[in-house]
């Protein structure tokens, strides 16, 4: 515009009145002026605020959509219609934002002159709503694979003949019919994650993914990246259930963020968690933030011990390699072991034993030696006949007197001194115990 003979501050030479620059400067609409050579000649304050670019830095920028052009230059480039001298409007992605998040509607008003062309007056309207990103669908075989994989997580995995087990199952079935956050309590290896998967597979969220977050094995920044960063696993509604393993080990600030996320309406996901101790104990121990406990431990469900689940053994054997079952002797061995690592340990043992069995039903000799020995000790008679105390004391006394006499070369006075008694008492005890000079030598 400066080339067209305007005066200072945007006022045409010799023409009094309001400067066009100050007029444009006060409007809240982002405006810009391009010269006939498509160079940026002027931007107003609203434009600077929108783009974050000061006018001094962008003045002279050639606005075109060539390969080497910046995103800003491409966004402000006149359309072919505008180049032809006609007003036009175009929607373009805003520069310096993630693709598909914010768009600009850019309007171009050509400024024709009696002899030639001054340039264009442009304005920008920000389109607030997010444009739908172009997402390719996941391959069909992946969906089939997921469906096949999730089929194994069925209720029959947990079913048994025990009444305690039935009550527990009823509780879980009810939990599957709701969206209430579930907290599973059980020792390590007791099958908390598998139980959570089964509940997920039976819930209305089963079409979404089951995402298990190992809070103990993952660094907090990796969990933050997984749950809070752009492109996180909770975006797009792909996740059906989010299961947090031992969330009490997380730093308190991350626990606070998770508690806020649980209450956030922008996230639609079923929450589950699992730990060895009840959440209340974890709160009292200062490990778990009360806010997170309140958000996640709405329905705490303790898992029954392995001892109460032996009726599930045949189902587990099917899953872990031996559908032919187990004989009674082997079952007795299995039941006698305390299983400190629960189902995880049982699975290891059954897997290995099934390999030894080589297609035969599981027998006692297929089980590890440690288990068999433990079972033998457990089944040994517990009644032990103890010798009488007098007999034990007399035996000890006799041996001590004999030792003292030997050490003192059968000098009875010296032996009595060594034993800390008088000689007469030594003689009396020797007589009572049947010790003579001959049989002590």
């Amino acid at each position, binding site marked *: 515009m400066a080339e067209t003979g305007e005066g200072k501050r945007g006022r045409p030479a010799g023409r009094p009145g309001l400067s066009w620059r100050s007029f444009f400067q006060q409007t809240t609409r982002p405006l810009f002026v391009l010269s006939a050579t498509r160079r940026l000649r002027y931007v107003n304050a609203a434009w600077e605020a929108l783009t974050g670019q000061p006018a001094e830095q962008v003045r002279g920028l050639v606005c075109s959509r060539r390969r080497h052009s910046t995103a800003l230059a491409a966004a402000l480039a006149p359309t072919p219609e505008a180049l032809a001298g006609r007003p036009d409007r175009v929607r373009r992605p805003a520069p310096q934002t993630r693709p598909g998040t914010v768009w600009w509607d850019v309007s171009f008003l050509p400024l024709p002159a009696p002899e030639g062309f001054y340039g264009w007056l442009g304005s920008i309207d920000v389109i607030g709503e997010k444009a739908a990103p172009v997402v*390719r669908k996941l391959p069909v075989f992946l969906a089939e694979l997921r469906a096949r*994989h999730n089929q194994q997580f069925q209720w029959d995995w947990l079913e048994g003949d025990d009444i305690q087990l039935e009550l527990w199952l009823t509780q879980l079935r009810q939990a599957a019919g709701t969206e209430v956050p579930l907290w599973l309590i059980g020792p390590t290896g007791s099958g908390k994650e598998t139980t959570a998967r089964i509940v997920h597979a039976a819930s209305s969220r089963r079409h979404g993914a089951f995402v298990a977050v*190992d809070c103990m094995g993952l660094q907090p920044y990796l969990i933050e990246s997984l749950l809070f960063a752009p492109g996180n*696993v909770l975006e797009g509604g792909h996740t059906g259930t989010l299961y947090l393993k031992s969330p009490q080990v997380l730093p308190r600030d991350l626990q606070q963020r998770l508690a806020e996320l649980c209450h956030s309406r922008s996230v639609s996901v079923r929450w589950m968690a699992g730990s060895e101790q009840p959440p209340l104990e974890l709160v009292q121990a200062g490990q778990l933030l009360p806010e997170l406990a309140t958000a996640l431990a709405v329905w705490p469900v303790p898992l029954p011990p392995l001892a109460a689940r032996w009726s599930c053994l045949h189902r587990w054997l099917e899953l872990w390699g031996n559908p032919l079952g187990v004989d009674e002797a082997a079952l007795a061995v299995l039941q006698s072991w305390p299983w400190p690592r629960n189902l995880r340990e049982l699975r290891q043992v059954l897997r290995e034993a099934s390999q030894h069995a080589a297609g035969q039903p599981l027998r006692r000799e297929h089980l590890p030696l440690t288990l068999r020995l433990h079972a033998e000790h457990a089944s040994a008679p517990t009644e032990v006949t103890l010798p009488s105390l007098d007999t034990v004391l007399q035996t000890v006394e006799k041996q001590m007197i004999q030792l003292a006499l030997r050490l003192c070369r059968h000098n009875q006075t010296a032996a009595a001194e060594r034993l800390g008694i008088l000689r007469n008492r030594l003689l009396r005890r020797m007589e009572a115990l049947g010790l003579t000079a001959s049989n002590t030598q």
Partner: protein
Amino acid sequence: MRLPQVIVWEADGWMARQLRELAAEHRWLLRPVRSAQRIHQLLSPPDVCAVCLIQFEPWADRREPLELIAQLHRSQPDVAVVAVSDVKLSEAERSAWTAALFDLGARYVLFPPLTRPVLEDLVSGLMLAVIRRTVGVDPALTSAASQPAGGLGHSSAAASDHKDDHEPIDLVDEDEP
């Protein structure tokens, strides 16, 4: 218990090179492999502690890595599987793939930028958690997590007798075609 293993199934050996020092420091076996069958062989002992890194290619019609992740989750739920891709995806695609792979049983899914510190943090954290769960002891409390611990009736002497097992193997793949 046998020595913990870091199993890497990838095309170019980049991840194995990044993890070489970490494995040597902790005395873990680094196992670069070229086939799913080899991974099954390595994981066939019942009490093995392992972290398995599997490279996958989104959109490529290569089902084997994804099927392997699901198989491992079914047969070896204690093995921590990390799915790694070197393909850059949009945020929405990344979210969809991450959810799908977690659903198959992956413990974590990594997309670019892939850096050595992230790989090391991921593998070391998951390995210590796997050892804690499988062996039942906290590796931080023991002098070396890789020292064989007593298993259920399985002699640990076999592991200690073989001094070669204590040496991190060379990155040259043993099942090189």
